């Protein structure tokens, strides 16, 4: 209850800070915040699967990259309006997610992770070899165009508010999904799949559906990134990006709705400020990842939430609960 009193002002404060960003160009670089927002949406969408359904997809970069390339190509080569391009990127990524999901859920747990990884590699090679993608160079000089025909996106400030709006809508959709009857069924599947099946839920259909939704939102995140940087690059579809989004989610806390957002912000900031150190970024990311898995598996937000709860209810401190086996032997 108290948590709610605390979180509303925090949310408002955060939102105000976010909206104020373009007015302080000397303090923060708005393009960097936009990139961070893309990853925030990406990580929250990804967590629909990992945190809320208990499915580890190791190939989410495929959807992110698909969104980026589809939007880039449509806007650049066919002159499609930007908003439709972004929508199309999301839809194609969602369709791809339905296919990948339908294949991957034939196995579970660790196999599923390996299958999604292999399928995403398939997508990666497609973008490497397809005639329109510019291979190693990526799809460059994507025009930003206008939003709904009136807002000129070449202006960074205008683009910024459009990005904030779209990401906000995406996050609202994630929040709404998690707190819907559909979301409850997803959690039932995570906690005890055989029981969910025995209760008559078409578990496979639920899994494919959440896969599709997660992939679609990831695609929109990728589309936005392509518009912001005017570039769709191979790295967007590379498995390193799949790893990054897992790290963001774990670091932020996968049993929370917006923990991954915090994780995405942390990792983006880390990448941004460590960029001058070149290959050291990978090493440091790896070490952070390791520490995160070994010591605090609940993530930053999960850990804070638990700290708060234990302090409030001076009951015996709850031991950190790792996620239960999704598939008991």
């Amino acid at each position: 209850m108290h948590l709610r009193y605390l979180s509303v002002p925090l949310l408002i404060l955060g939102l105000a800070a976010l909206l104020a960003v373009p007015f302080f160009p000397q303090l923060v670089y708005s393009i960097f915040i936009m990139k961070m927002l893309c990853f925030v949406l990406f990580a929250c969408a990804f967590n629909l699967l990992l945190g809320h359904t208990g499915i580890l997809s190791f190939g989410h970069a495929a959807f992110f990259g698909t969104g980026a390339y589809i939007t880039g190509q449509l806007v650049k080569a066919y002159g499609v309006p930007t908003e439709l391009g972004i929508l199309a990127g999301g839809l194609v990524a969602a369709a791809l997610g339905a296919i990948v999901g339908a294949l991957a859920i034939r196995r579970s747990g660790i196999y599923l992770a390996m299958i999604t990884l292999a399928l995403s590699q398939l997508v990666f090679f497609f973008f490497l070899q397809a005639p329109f993608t510019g291979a190693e160079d990526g799809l460059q000089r994507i025009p930003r165009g206008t939003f709904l025909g009136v807002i000129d996106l070449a202006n960074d400030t205008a683009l910024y508010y459009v990005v904030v709006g779209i990401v906000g809508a995406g996050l609202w959709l994630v929040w709404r999904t998690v707190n819907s009857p559909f979301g409850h069924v997803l959690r039932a599947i995570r906690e005890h799949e055989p029981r969910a099946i025995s209760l008559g839920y078409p578990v496979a259909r639920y899994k494919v559906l959440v896969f599709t939704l997660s992939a679609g939102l990831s695609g929109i995140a990728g589309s936005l990134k392509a518009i912001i940087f005017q570039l769709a690059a191979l790295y967007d579809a590379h498995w390193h990006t799949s790893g990054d989004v897992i790290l963001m989610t774990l670091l932020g806390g996968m049993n929370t709705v917006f923990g991954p957002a915090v994780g995405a912000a942390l990792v983006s900031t880390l990448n941004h400020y460590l960029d001058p150190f070149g290959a050291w970024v990978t090493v440091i990311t790896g070490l952070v990842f390791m520490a995160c898995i070994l010591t605090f598996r609940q993530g930053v937000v999960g850990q804070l939430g638990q700290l708060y709860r234990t302090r409030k209810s001076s009951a015996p401190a709850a031991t950190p609960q790792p996620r239960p086996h999704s598939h008991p032997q």
Partner: protein
Amino acid sequence: MDIFGIPIPALMGQLMLGIVNGSFYAVLSLGLAIIFGVLKIVNFAHGAFFMLGAFTAFLLAQYMGANYWMTLAIAPLAVALFGMAFEFLFLRRLYGLDPIYGLLLTFSLVLVLEGGFRVAFGSSGQPFATPELLRGTIDLGFMILPLYRGFVIVSALLLCLATWFIIERTSLGASLRAATERSELTQAFGINVPRLVTLTYGVGVGLAAFAGVLAAPIFHVNPSMGSSLVIIIFAVVVIGGLGSIMGAIVAGLGLGVVEGFTRVFYSEFSSTIVFLVMVLVLLLRPAGLFGREEG
């Protein structure tokens, strides 16, 4: 003489390349299968250990003047020791949790190792000389086989068979299999299961490093040589069935050959054919060609 318009020597050349790649796949997926069998962890770092093997050999040759045969013996042992230390210090803490954490921890090790080697040696490849003794070629009548490639195929096959023999036909292998099935019960019989687990990880990782040393003269030694391979290995293992040792060997070799033929007939597909086969296998036999559906 042509087959489908492709001259036989070209076809045989690609087939041979396919078998060489298949040998690497076989050794790597074998190690992965053994580790998974006992630890129930998918060792994402398998490719990184492959790379580590190649780099250890390169460094031994470069700075210690070790000859090829010495590196082939020392590098896998050194990497195995490193792997055992990693298992003992870190991986061990995750047993009993969701196996996904094991996958993620080994993934983070990949980032650290690859990044570290990139910092130290850059992204470009380091050349590694083929040993003097194996530099020639041998004429098989229908094709000319570089001696070193023949050596890779033969030693990889021997290694696979030896590993299979140890696991299926010796008492050490028997306790290993027992630990795979019921680790508490095995422990109750007085077998030191934790030590067995560490040993298994060492052996699996050592196999990967051995493959890395074998690969060093063929590929350039570079930090990312393992990570592109490990994804293919995952697909191979899904196709073969993760629990099965024979499955890993057969699927590894078979997919190498399939890949080689694809390169001849439709080269655009050669990098993706393994994944396409995986999709097909998943649709028809979700448990893999040699796997059993777990209950």
